[in-house]
């Protein structure tokens, strides 16, 4: 097979393949290209045995470089023994006669780390090498990815705010009915024990009619604050509409404990709320339904029963509470500090 020969000065090889090495028959490096020399800042591999400086990962278990000689060349996967974190790629080819062999090495995708570690510049790569283009692309991709991440974070923030808003009553900051339905659905499907407390403000209409909507809004906000303060973090306080509130008390089904919570709330609602220096007097009525009282607690049924109990309380006068399971008795308990009189 005819094989035409040309002679190349080493300077041409240096420019074409600045990461090549010429290895003699004994496996020693007789010449290293200028960029390859930068990988060994001391003596640039002068006179070193190739396999002592580089560790071959593939092919493995090579004792002599001559084992690698194949007509079409052998692909190498290798590392610098002093820099095992940078994987290198290479190709080894036999040189004619007894000139030894030629190895050309590349950083492959490790170029981004390598340029920093070995302090390389674009002059260390020939213009035909795409390493610089790859570095450019990596940086451009990072810049675009950063923008993309920022955009996603802003969208995520907006989504959370929108969801929060969708489940919140804007005047009081309490949960709304949508949120309540979701929580009740969860309680039902998980078989959670809970109590539903339905609360209606008394005399709210009078405040609204005599002092105006601003006073009414303030009263609602203050009542909401009382409800949040008198319940635990695992409970849910819902503005059910107008001057009606629903409290979902998680895991709390003991009538005495619930009575104590309800009485504390009723007592605090009796305290006058100051609107521009004018005291607003309101009160409340409460009806309570317990999941324990049902074989299969249906949230809708419980809400309805709590509402019926609420009307028993209303009919008994201000600041009263009653339980759905006592409906037949038609009895309500009054907050002890309050004298019996009509409710609004």
């Amino acid at each position, binding site marked *: 097979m005819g094989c035409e020969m040309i002679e190349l000065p080493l300077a041409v090889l240096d420019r074409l393949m600045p990461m090549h090495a010429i290895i003699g028959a004994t496996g020693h490096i007789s010449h290293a290209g200028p960029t390859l020399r930068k990988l060994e800042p001391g003596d640039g591999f002068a006179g070193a045995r190739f396999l002592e400086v580089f560790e071959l990962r593939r092919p493995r278990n090579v004792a002599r470089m001559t084992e690698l000689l194949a007509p079409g060349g052998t692909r190498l996967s290798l590392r610098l023994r002093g820099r095992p974190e940078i994987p290198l790629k290479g190709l080894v080819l036999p040189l004619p006669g007894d000139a030894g062999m030629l190895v050309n090495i590349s950083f492959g995708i490790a170029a*981004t*780390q390598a*340029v*920093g*570690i070995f*302090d*390389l*510049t*674009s*002059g260390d790569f020939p213009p035909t090498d795409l390493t*610089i283009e790859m*570095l*450019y*692309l990596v*940086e*451009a*991709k*990072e*810049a*675009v990815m950063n*923008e*993309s991440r*920022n*955009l996603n974070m*802003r969208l995520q923030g907006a989504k959370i705010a929108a969801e929060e808003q969708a489940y919140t009553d804007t005047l009081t900051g309490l949960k709304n009915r949508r949120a309540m339905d979701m929580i009740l659905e969860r309680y039902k499907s998980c078989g959670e024990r809970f109590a539903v407390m339905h609360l209606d403000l008394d005399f709210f209409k009078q405040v609204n009619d005599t002092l105006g909507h601003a006073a009414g809004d303030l009263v609602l906000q203050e009542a909401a604050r009382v409800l949040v303060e008198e319940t635990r973090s695992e409970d849910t306080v819902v503005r059910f509409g107008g001057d009606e509130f629903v409290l979902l008390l998680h895991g709390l089904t003991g009538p005495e404990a619930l009575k104590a919570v309800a009485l504390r709330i009723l007592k605090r609602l009796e305290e006058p709320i100051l609107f521009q220096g004018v005291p607003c007097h309101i009160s409340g009525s409460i009806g309570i339904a317990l999941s324990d009282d049902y074989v299969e607690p249906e949230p809708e049924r419980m809400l309805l029963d709590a509402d019926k109990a609420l009307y028993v309380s209303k009919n008994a006068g201000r600041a009263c509470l009653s339980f759905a399971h006592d409906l037949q008795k038609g009895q309500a308990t009054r907050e002890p500090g309050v004298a019996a009189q009509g409710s609004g």
Partner: protein
Amino acid sequence: MHGLINRSIQCFLRDTYGAESWNTIAAVAELGHNNFEALLDYDQAQTEAVLGAAAGHLGSPLEIVLEDLGTYLVSHSNMHSLRRLLRFGGESFVDFLHSLDELHDRARMAVPDLSVPVLELLDHSSSAFTLLVRHDYPGFGYVVLGVLRAMADDYGALVFLEHQGEKDRVEMVSIELLETGFAEGREFALAQAG
């Protein structure tokens, strides 16, 4: 126009003249918002409205605003990644000038839907060049002028630049290289810091 361009204009106005100026300009331009997202697309009318409002608010001709925008893109610390990408163009200012022919394709390689001007460098001698700027948006040549001015500083080269007007949607910028090693120039390493 691509959000990256609109976002750059917004950052330029905000970083240079303050958030209050930017908000005023956004209001005068009747954007209906005051924040461009870099990865979304916007109607070109919004870009033109912002630039017009900026020129009015700052009391400067549009050409000056565009040129300052170009300078900002390279020299402001918030834009260091763009400056780095441009520096990949070459080791010297002349190498960089020659790399401008590729700029359009390079930009597309990074952001496929980004439309930046097609640039073509004509060299009259080793120190006299004309850059042709082709873009649908007239005035882009002034942005390029600002970019060139800042990049010359970056390489430490002393240049004389002049916008030579526009003909058939092609703007011409003349470049006269007076001295390549006029000043120190800014550091550029292939590896990113940190």
